């Protein structure tokens, strides 16, 4: 059930005319969307364009979002369709393409073979990942467990409290302290 309440609350605000609230959804889902689209669209700047288009389409279609599924499930569908459209247009443009969309869909994300030059505004994932993992390894055991159970196993605070045998309040503060520590390490990377 996680994500639904906050997302729906935000969507409600956007539907009430608060465009700034939409920013929160973009900030939250941008990486997942770009990552998803990159599986279809190999060229990075094209993938960014398609991702941007996805978020714009989603904004325009938001009045139709009924909350029957999670917001991300809905956004995912828009992203996949937008990516497929992009590929169709591409294949028309370049005589014949041997892309099989259904096949591309299952190809793992980081298979892109062409390495492009990195402009100033791009941060390489591996650099970030390394920083985060290194930081996690150095966290005290209780903080590490709490953040992992939350982010990787997707457990609720209550479930983590059972697993770690501590009060829910402690879980909350451990997760926050873990995030805060990692955040202090990645902040400089993102501000570069």
């Amino acid at each position, binding site marked *: *059930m*996680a994500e639904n309440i*906050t997302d729906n*609350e*935000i969507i409600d605000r956007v*539907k*009430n*005319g*608060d*465009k700034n*609230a939409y920013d*929160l959804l*973009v*900030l939250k889902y941008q*990486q*997942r969307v*770009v*990552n998803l689209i*990159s*599986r279809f669209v190999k060229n*990075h700047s094209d*993938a960014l364009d398609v991702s*941007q288009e996805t*978020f*714009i389409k989603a*904004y*325009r279609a*938001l*009045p139709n979002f*009924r*909350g*029957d*599924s*999670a917001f991300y*499930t809905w956004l995912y569908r828009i992203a996949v369709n937008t990516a497929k459209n992009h590929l169709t247009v591409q294949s028309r443009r370049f005589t014949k393409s041997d892309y099989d969309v259904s096949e591309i869909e299952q190809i793992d*994300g*980081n298979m892109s073979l062409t390495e492009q030059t*990195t402009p100033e*505004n*791009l941060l*390489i*994932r591996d650099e*970030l990942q390394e920083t*985060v*993992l290194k930081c*996690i390894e150095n966290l005290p055991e209780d903080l590490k467990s709490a*953040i*992992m159970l939350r*982010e*990787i196993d997707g457990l609720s*605070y209550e479930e983590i409290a059972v697993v770690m045998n501590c009060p829910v309040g402690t879980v*909350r*503060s451990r*997760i*926050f302290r873990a*995030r*805060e520590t990692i955040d202090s390490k*990645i902040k400089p990377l*993102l501000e*570069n």
Partner: protein
Amino acid sequence: MKKQKQEILSTLIDDELTNNKEILDNLISNEEMKDTWARFHLIGDCLRGNLPKKIDRNFSSNLKKIIANEPSLFFPNKNYKLVKEPIIGFAIAASVAIFAVLGIQRADISPIETTASTVHMKKEIVDSKLDTFSFPDNYVAPANVEEINEYDFLSNQRLNNYLINHSQYRNDLKMNTVLPYARIVNIETED
């Protein structure tokens, strides 16, 4: 004060707040908080292997400029459902169906007890999220992610024995004959 707000933000991210209103008001109007919101989500995506190969620092600000030119929406009716209730109903039906089928199915194996105690059924049901399972990429858990206590584990003969036994029985079920033994080959033994 800032820390306190950030902790509330962290709780909001995990959908564990009962009252979101105040923090959301705050978040929408405060750029610094928004940045924190983005980075906290980025940490989660990073741990789950959801990051694209390259991260564009300006993606959201570029998009914001475009959205600024879009008309504001005005659809104030809350036409989404609060999904919890209907899903519980659906899941109860699904669970009943599972039990019904199982009753016939298990003729070949006579169970010692009927499992899945009804006491915990409610919890089970709430967690039945059929549509959120995904296979995003080929990210393999780095060491420590799964809370490995390698030293303890490898030096623990008893646990190794348990693992060998467990793997053998798993093998008996014939669903996957290679993997269980692969684990055994890797197990450390003690003199």
